[in-house]
Structure formats: C-alpha cells, structure tokens
C-alpha cells in the first residue's frame, strides 16, 4: 500500500532525503491511539534536523481538512485521510472469549486468546500504517510538502486540537461527504459541463467508487469468515487430543498426529485469511478512499466552473448596464484562469490516479497470488507428511 508513486509528476524522487516522515511509535490507550510522528529533514524552514511529536487521529483529520479547504490545492487530489482507529470488534471478541472461558479447556482458551491478541495487534499495525501513508504522501508531494500546516503538524509540540469540535466547521472545514454528495447532484443539474472528458470521468469514478466500496465490504466479510474457519480448527484439534487421552490403545498416537495436523493447518489457514485481508481488502479500501478524493477534486472543479459561469453572466450584465465593467472583467478573467488551471491540473491528477491505481493493484494482486500459492503448497505438503506419518501408524 505504500504509495511511492512511479509517475514523475508531483512527487519527489525516492532518493531525496529532504523531508522524511514516519510513525516511529504508537500507543493504544483506552479509546485513543497516540502516534509518535518522527521527522528527519534538511529543509531550512524547520528548526531542527530531527524531531518528533505526539499526535492523535483527530489532528490528522485537522491536517487533511486544511489541505482540502485551500484553493491553491483545488486542482489536486488530496490524499484521503486515514480512517479512525477502531478496535471495537477486537475488544468485543476478547470480551466474549473471556465470558466463555469456562466452556473450553485451558489449551483451547490460550490458543484462542493468542489468535485474538494477534488480530488486535494486526489491526493496530494497520491503523499505524494508514496514518503513516497519509503523511508520507504529503511529505513526498512537491506542492503539499511546502504547506505550513504540515510543518505545524510535524513540529508544533502542543496539541493542535485544543478547540472543541464544533469550531472546526466554522473554520471552513466543511468538507465531508455530507457536503460533496449534495454538491454533485446540484451541480450536475444546473451546470453543463463544458468538457466531455470530465463528465465521463465523474460518472465512471462514481461508479468505480461504488464498486470499490462494495468490493471492500464483501472482501472484509470473506476474510473474517475465513479466520473463523481457521479458528474452528482449535476446538477440533483440542477435541482430538482429549479423545486420544481417554482412548488409550492403538488409536491414541494416531489421533494425536491428526490433532497436530489440524493445529498446523490452522495456522496456515489463518495466514491465508490475513494475507487476503492485507493484499486484497486493503488495496480495495485504499482506492475506494482515493477515488473519493478524486471525486472531491472534480466537485471542486465544477464549483470553479459555476463560479466562472457566474462571473461571465455578471460581466454581461455589467456591460449591459455599463457599470463596473472593469471589475467584472477582472473577476471574469480570474475565474477563467482559475478554472483553466484547475482543469489542466485535474486532468493530470486523474491520469496520475490511474497510473497509481494500476501499479498498486498489480503489486497487490501479484503478492496475493504468490502468497495464496505459497500457503496452499505448504498445506499440501503438511497433509502429505501427516498422511505419511499416519500410514506408518496403520
């Protein structure tokens, strides 16, 4: 998922060390996560060459909103903000396990606990990765990296979100989907898009986004169920061991070997589930959000178009009334320039988005296939070996 874009437009080359950002540590506390954002830089506008601050999820959102509302970046796809850390599912499962402790053997309980803890850890790592990717995309983008809000975010060692939530929106952070979907509808109805290209893009992006969303949901369900299947092996191998214990004789060694096979298979099956999640689900998820960011760009462009058309009408009226023509002309020229620049920029960004998507999918699908093959082969070998052992015991 690391989006070091191959396309040369908008990004700094990989060998550039002028601004390197990563999340060096993270702490999970009750219901919040504290990320340690670590920066190394050779840029002059920072006070020190290396420093770190602690940030929470809301501050990442604050940063994203600052980019989104800035007209200078209107023509760019703003990297989608990371999703809020959510450990509810993991916590619930751990709790349920605790409640059911009495119904299973100590071994079974420990194994399930281990699995859930691993899940929790994986969720945690993922949320760290997603927050990190957001920052690295900003830091490696030729325009975004110069932004003063980013610098404040990276360096300012006090809380950025001291103000209560409500005030954000006053500050113009009115960017969420709440706004953009109604915009789209409104704009599509009242503004004729001058460029065919963009109209097509908007339509196909909307559809694509929808399909990505669906794909993400379905893949998540599948990987979760896959994990459930793997975990169900725990009780079975445990049961076989217990059976062996009360059935002394020619069967007990046999059953123990089968139990062993199940236990090993379980670990592999679990890996398959988590790899499917990492390679497929996460890719779909990320591009779902990225495509949403692309749609936001097109909406901004349409807004710009609306402004331009309004300026045109204003100019006409001014000419008719022969009043404030100069001001109207100036406004119209500005609007036109802005619209042109945003259109040009948007076109490049969309192409770039396509390239990024291509490479990311290619990488993920290749890795997915390779891992699936690897795990299936390992399971195959595992069973072969088990069978050999069992045949000897016959």
């Amino acid at each position, binding site marked *: 998922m690391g989006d070091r874009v191959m396309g040369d437009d908008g990004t700094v080359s990989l060998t550039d060390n002028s601004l390197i950002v990563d999340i060096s540590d993270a702490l999970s506390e009750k219901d919040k996560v504290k990320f340690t954002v670590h920066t190394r830089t050779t840029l002059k506008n920072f006070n020190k060459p290396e420093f770190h601050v602690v940030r929470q999820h809301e501050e990442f959102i604050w940063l994203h909103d600052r980019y989104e509302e800035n007209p200078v970046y209107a023509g760019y796809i703003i990297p989608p903000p990371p999703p809020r850390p959510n450990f509810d599912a993991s916590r619930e499962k751990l709790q349920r396990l605790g409640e059911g402790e009495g119904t299973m053997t100590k071994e079974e309980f420990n194994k399930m606990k281990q699995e859930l803890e691993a899940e929790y850890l994986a969720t945690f790592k993922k949320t760290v990765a997603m927050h990190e990717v957001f920052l690295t995309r900003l830091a490696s983008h030729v325009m975004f990296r110069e932004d003063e809000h980013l610098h404040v975010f990276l360096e300012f060692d006090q809380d950025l979100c001291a103000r209560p939530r409500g005030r954000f929106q006053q500050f113009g952070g009115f960017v969420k989907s709440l706004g953009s979907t109604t915009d789209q509808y409104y704009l599509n109805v009242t503004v004729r898009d001058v460029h065919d290209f963009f109209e097509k893009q908007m339509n*196909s992006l909307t*559809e*694509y986004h929808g*399909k*990505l969303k*669906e*794909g993400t949901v*379905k*893949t998540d*369900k*599948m990987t979760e*169920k*896959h994990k*459930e*299947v793997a975990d*169900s*092996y725990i*009780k*079975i191998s445990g*049961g*076989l061991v*217990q*059976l062996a214990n*009360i*059935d002394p*004789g*020619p*069967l007990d060694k*046999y*059953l123990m070997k*089968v139990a062993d*096979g199940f236990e090993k*298979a379980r670990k592999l099956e679990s890996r398959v589930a988590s790899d499917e999640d990492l390679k*497929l689900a996460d890719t779909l998820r990320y591009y779902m959000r990225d495509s949403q960011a692309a749609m936001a760009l097109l909406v901004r462009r349409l807004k710009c178009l609306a402004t331009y058309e309004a300026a045109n009408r204003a100019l006409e009226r001014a000419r008719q009334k022969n009043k404030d023509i100069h001001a109207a002309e100036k406004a119209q020229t500005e609007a036109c320039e802005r619209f042109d620049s945003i259109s040009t920029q948007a076109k490049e960004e969309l192409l770039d988005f*396509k390239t990024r*998507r*291509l*490479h990311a*999918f*290619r990488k993920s*699908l*290749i890795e*997915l*296939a*390779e891992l*699936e*093959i690897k795990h*299936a*082969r390992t*399971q*195959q070998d595992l*069973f*072969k070996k*088990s*069978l050999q052992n*069992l*045949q000897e*015991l*016959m």
Partner: protein
Amino acid sequence: MADSVEPPPLFENVDMKREEAEDDDLFESAVQSQPSANLCLEEDGHDLLNGDSDIGEEIDKLMLNDKSEMENVPINNQSTIATPTMEEVEAEGGDQFIEITITEPQKVGDGMGAYMAYRVLTHTNMPFFKKREFAVMRRFSDFLGLHDKLTEKYLKVGRIIPPAPEKNVIGKAKIKMAQSEQAGNGSDFIERRRAALERYLRRTSQHPVLIVDPDFREFLECDIELPKATNTSALSGAGVMRFINKVGETVNKITYKMEETDPWFENKLVHVEGLENQLRKLHYNVEAMVSYRKELANLTNGVSRSAAMLSVCEDHNLLSRALSQLADTEEKVEAVHMEQANTDFYILCEMLKDYLGLLGSVRDAFHERTKMFQLWQHSQQMLTKKREAKAKLELQGRTDKVDQAGVEVIEWEAKVERSQESFDRISKMIKLEMDRFEKCRIQDFKVTFIKYLENHMEHQAQLVKYWDDFLPEAKAIA
C-alpha cells in the same frame, strides 16, 4: 422366536416364557460357533484394510465433477469395504466380499403420500446369496423395519446392532411438498439420507452374523415391495408403544443399579461413556466448522461478483482483464471451499455421528445384560421364596400342598440355572461383540482420517493450480 414383542421393561413383569425360548440358542446363524467366531475376528481386520484401494478413484471423480454437482457430490460415491463372514472358515480364505451401494433416489407418487425410493445395489461373491449382482428398490421405512427386525432377534443375546439413520420429520415434509425434484429444495437432505442409509447397510453387512440373517438377505435381494413397516412411523400406535417402552427402559436404566462382579464391564462402560462425551463435543465442533466453511464459500462468491463488476467499470484494459480473471479464480476457490465443506461433513462429521449412534447400540447391549442379571436375581429370589414356602408347608404338615410346592421349587431351580446360563452367555457374547466392535472402530477411524486428509490435500492442490493460473494475469497488468 421373533414373534414376541420386546417385553415390558419393568422388573416385576418379566415374561417367564422368554426364558424357554432362549433354550433354542436363539436364531443365531446356523454356522455360529465359538472357534469360528474368533477366527472371523482376525480376518475382519485384514479385509477392512483392503478397503483403501479405491480412494484414488474417488479423488479423480471429485476433480472431474463439474460445478453444478459440486454441492451434492457425495464423497462415498463408490468404494469397498470388504467383509468376511463365518463361512470363511470353511471357505478357507479372506476372499469373500460384499459391496453395497445406494443410488438413484426417486420420488414415487404425489402429495403427502409420496415417498423416496432408493436403489440398493449389491455386488458379492458370498455363496448364500442367490446371485452375484442384484438390485432392489427400497424406501426409508423399509430400512427402519429391517433394523427393528434385527434388533428384535439379536439384541437380546447381546449383539451390537448398527442403528438405522434417524428420521427427520421436517426434512421429509419438505420433500413431500416439493413440486419439482430439483432445486436445492431438500436435495441436500436426500443426499445426506442416501449416504447415511448406505453406511448403515455397509456396517450391518460387516457383521458376520447379521450378513447371513434371512431378513437382511431378503432386504438386499428380494425384488418385491416389502410389506410396509407401518409400526416404524413415529405417530403410529406401535410408535407410541415404542416410545412408552423406551421411557420405561430409560427409567430402568437409571434406577436399577447392578452389582457388577466382572470389572471388565464396569471399565468398558466408563470407557464408552467417556468416548460418547468426547465424540459429542467433537461432532459439535466439526459441525460448526462445516457451517463456517459453507458460509465462507458463499462469501467468496460475493467477492468474485464484486471483482467482476469492478472489471466492467475499469477502463484500463489489462487491469480490467486481470480483475475479470480474479473473479473467475475466486469462483473456483468458492467451489473448492464448498467441496471441502462436503468433505468435512460426509467424511468426518457423519462418521462421528454414526459412532455416537453405535455407542448407543453398545449401551443397549450392555443394558440387555443388566436385564438378564435382573432376571437371574429375580429367579433366585423366587427360588428362595418357594423353598421357604415348601419348608413352611412341611413344618405345618400340609402334605397335600408340599408336593405342589416341591414341583415349584424344582421349576424355579431350573429357571435359576437357565437364567444364569443366559447371563453368562450374554456376558460372553458382549465381550466378543465389543472386541469386534473396537477393532472395527479403530480401523474405521484410521481409514476415515486418512481419507479426510487426502481430500483436504487434494483441495489444497487445486488451490495451488488456480492461483498459479492467475499469477501471470496479475503480472500482465501494465
């Protein structure tokens, strides 16, 4: 001798007449004798091993089946588990076999009177069958009727009789209501029942005594419609009687505590109970795994469809193609998951269930022995009473009644002797049966787990192939 209904269970009403009938040495096979029984048991193990040979064929069958049949592919489409019989001793060889398959379930009739008929196909070289290959049509109640007859005849002497598949009233009603024969409308249920009936017949045919039983043979080879076993219906009068008897039996089992003189039986019972507990748990957990895997298959289908839809609205050609290939791959993976769920179910889950039923039959046999013991104790008590009565009459000088009392004492002495003999016989029989049962069980478990792992391994091999085929498509993007 099989004309009597099973006697009411309560201790006081034990039918004395039964003991006389026991003298016939029962309707055991004409060939039954101690030494041959022992020899047979050894052969049992040897021949069962030979059953493994067809697994390779089955796996090929699995791979060749096209998707439309996947969900209903029974794992045990055909295979052999060879069975020896008593005659082997005379035939001096382990080359006798019998192979029973059940195929072609067909719906007969319409509406509520409709029923499913199953084709029972037998291949055998056993001399006491009229032909080497023959088939008959039987319905479910015929199987239950067969089981009832066998139980009536052989349970009393302590044989372990394989239980017949359970009735499932809801599933059956669904079948009757179904307008068409296809559609998932209970076709899983039919397949499940077919496989269960097949396993039931095979297990029964493995038993050296049951295989030669005339009722069993008639069931397999007589190509006539068997008289409808009406008293197998759950709601019939006989069914109600059976239920009452069963309740009575259960009360008896709980309330009567036998003084065990032979620790072998106590240990065995403890062992059996332990096995039942563990198998029950294991069965439950395997069932859970089956249901999860089936759900996984469905969800994989969802992913496949999503990938297909993404492929359609993806404008980059190569990525679009790759996504479409991904959709195909996931569809194939879904099929593998489904097949694996079937493997889990038909090979593992159903075997565990069968053994829970079989252990129930073991307990039944043990219980018969307990009843024999009760009988024996009862006769001893009666004898004592009669002796006391006679002595009392003698003291009273009632010479007219003394003779009668003397006759009764002699009668009861004989009864005591007979019931003790019966008890000893059933104890011996149970030991033999348990020996055979345990050998079969161990072999069954071993074979089953091997089959299970082989199938699992094959499925993983399929996955390797599918993803291997997909990999170049992914690499071809851009």
